[in-house]
């Protein structure tokens, strides 16, 4: 049998490949100690009885607007399944629509196709963030699908200023800085942040297409 290090045993245990009983005795004892200690905090704390009433009163006071529900419905992530025949149908329809556009242009009124492509070219955008206490600052936003690894900012030597230049596609984007890998913060240098609906505030950036 292969000899595993404690770290490998722990890795397999945390992944769920082996059970607690399969761990070496010393590791088992440590885990039991931790579970036992944490169990002391796992008391039967219940939400205050008034919580549900407060939530329902707030919901009744400001019900969901039909407009908000429609916007949310439009942006709801969903899986679309197409049969090969339907896929082919969509492709034929898309080609037909393009063929019907005057002069064979990709976008009505946009001039030649090359110009249409250059309009969508990303624009180098500078982001600046002041964070005296940070050891790492990253940037994330909708144009990178909110990648939580983010784009690292560089700290200007001898200062609390962090900066990075990033190519951003033209359009309106939401973004946020992440301090030390976990603390999401809107950009204080941007305008009023917007509520993302999930408990965080995002900053809004408008990137104009660069001149061709």
């Amino acid at each position: 049998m292969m000899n595993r290090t404690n770290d490998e045993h722990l890795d397999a245990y945390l992944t769920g490949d082996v059970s607690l009983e399969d761990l070496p005795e010393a590791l088992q004892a440590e885990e039991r100690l931790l579970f036992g200690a944490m169990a002391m905090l796992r008391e039967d704390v219940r939400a205050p009885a008034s919580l549900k009433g407060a939530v329902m009163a707030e919901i009744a006071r400001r019900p969901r607007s039909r407009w908000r529900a429609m916007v949310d419905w439009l942006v709801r992530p969903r899986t679309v399944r197409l049969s090969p025949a339907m896929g082919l149908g969509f492709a034929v329809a898309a080609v037909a629509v393009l063929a019907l556009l005057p002069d064979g242009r990709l976008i009505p009124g946009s001039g030649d196709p090359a110009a249409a492509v250059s309009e969508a070219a990303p624009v180098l955008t500078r982001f600046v963030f002041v964070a005296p206490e940070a050891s790492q600052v990253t940037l994330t936003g909708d144009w990178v699908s909110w990648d939580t690894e983010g784009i690292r900012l560089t700290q200007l030597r001898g200062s609390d200023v962090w900066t990075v230049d990033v190519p951003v596609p033209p359009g309106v984007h939401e973004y946020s800085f992440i301090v030390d890998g976990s603390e999401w913060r809107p950009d204080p240098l941007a305008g009023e942040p917007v509520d993302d609906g999930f408990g965080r505030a995002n900053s809004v950036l408008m990137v104009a297409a660069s001149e061709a």
Partner: protein
Amino acid sequence: MHTLSDKELVERARAGNRGAFGTLVERYQDPLFRYARHMGFGEADARDILQDAFVRAFRHLERCGDPDRFDGWLFKITANLCRTAASKGANREEHGLDEVMLLETDPDPAEAAEAASRRRRIKAALEDLPADQREAAVLFYIQGYGVREIAELADASQSAIKMRLKRARESLKAALGPLGDEGTSA
């Protein structure tokens, strides 16, 4: 009696049935409240966070892509609100769970005081962890989630969660070591 699934309740709430959403509130308020409390928030702050989370969830129900996983979606909203509140310093409660339990659970004052002292040490060790490690430790050791589920809830990779748990357990072991002699076996 047929208990409605999360999916059925979400669909009814989306159609405007507030009572259906009330059932979802009842279903998840206790585990989420425990989570907020274990993340270091006092009762009033934890209550405010949950109220905000449920109201946001109701307003944005259409964004819940998979109503069968409503619980995970709601947890993410709550966890984000906890992180935001923590960054504003709201998770430093004036009196902890231990004092509340001391008053409520143990009739013997000496035993209660000793138990409260042990809980205080454990709680302090947990609170000293960086927020991402504390979140992983609370979900794994207290709320019983697996690494894969925690990774989904925390929007992180499984390897990142394992690393957080390993670092958390090292810190907790160092802080709690002597407790092993005091009989904390569950």
